């Protein structure tokens, strides 16, 4: 599973990353996390409000920090 965290390094992006890592740990799943900070690449995902989380090829959330439970839910259905 490939995860991407889109965001220019604001506090919320870090909050999203830690929620994602916590969810992965809870599920015992292994995944690569890539941080995308380039605004052009962020935009190319169709994202206009950061932070955003991309699982494989799908944007699952943008513009807010989801809870660990929410992230785990998205990860578990993959």
């Amino acid at each position, binding site marked *: 599973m490939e995860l991407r965290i889109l965001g220019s390094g604001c506090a919320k992006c870090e909050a999203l990353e830690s929620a994602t890592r916590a969810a992965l740990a809870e599920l015992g799943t292994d995944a690569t996390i890539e941080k995308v900070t380039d605004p052009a690449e962020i935009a190319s995902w169709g*994202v206009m409000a*950061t932070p955003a989380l991309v699982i494989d090829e799908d944007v699952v959330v943008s513009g807010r920090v989801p809870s660990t*439970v929410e992230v785990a839910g998205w990860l578990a259905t993959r």
Partner: protein
Amino acid sequence: MTTPALARPPRANPVRRWSLVAAGALTWWVLYRLNAPFWDWLLFHAIGVDADSRLGDSVYFFFYDLTKITLLLCGIIFVVTVLRSFMSVERTRALLGGRREGVGNVAAAGLGVVTPFCSCSAVPAFIGFVAAGVPLGVTMSFLIASPMVNEVAVVLLYGLFGWQVTALYVAAGLTIAATAGWVIGRLRLERWVEPFVFETKLRGRPIDPAAGLSWDDRLTMGREEVASILRRIWPYLLVGIGVGALIHGWAPEAWFADHADGPLGVPIAVALGVPLYSNAAGVLPLVEALYAKGLPIGTVLAFMMSVVALSLPEVILLRRVLQPKLIATFVGVVATGIMAVGFLFNAVI
């Protein structure tokens, strides 16, 4: 299809949720009412500072204003974040797509006020708008209105200056955003946008952040936004109120009265305000103190607008998508609009 261990927690009880909201609102109201009597009692009676001295004046201004602004900010940010969770940049873009210039600029300025938007997303949003076919000038109207007429500015202006000044500020801000965007559109400056913006392919389906949220989610977002904004702006707030308090107690009124009314007041205010980076919360205590010292309202509002609407960090961010000539035009057009508003207010009021 979540595993049982990770199932969503059971829905919170609505009665409990709304009682908590009501209790919070009541606490806020009581604290707001107690602000003035509390500091009056503590400083002038319990500690015994001389109420008529410069020191007493400044210290009272500092603590009273700090408490008042912090309370106003908490209340407003919470309410506005909850309301805005029904709106999103995606919806705004959909509303703006296919609009002609003119109408589009006015709509963009209005939507800039109600759309939840952080200036840290300015570049992805710019690309997203332009690549989806929203005209350049309309996109600019959105990007100008969003920081200038935001909830923090509006409520603080209301709290410190009353509704007339607030209405003036909002009307002026929307007019500047719509007009400046329209002018940029008429100038046909698309050639000064970095070419990759138009070539950006939007892959995937954009998801709407406003969809599928429960009331608990929205209230949590409100609470988290209050914490995150206060964490970000408290240094600006302290500096702004500190400088405001010094001006309040020490700045010579006679000097201001002699020098503040000249025709150069507005251009100087804008020239000082453009490079400065602060936000409404940081600049308003300063504006309030300067106004109390006799600086004309047009001059202080022009100063505030140029601080919140234009800044060096924002220009550096936009450089990623706009060529320097377009950035210079953008700053020039907006600064001219702000000066025009400043002169107009000074002449009329």
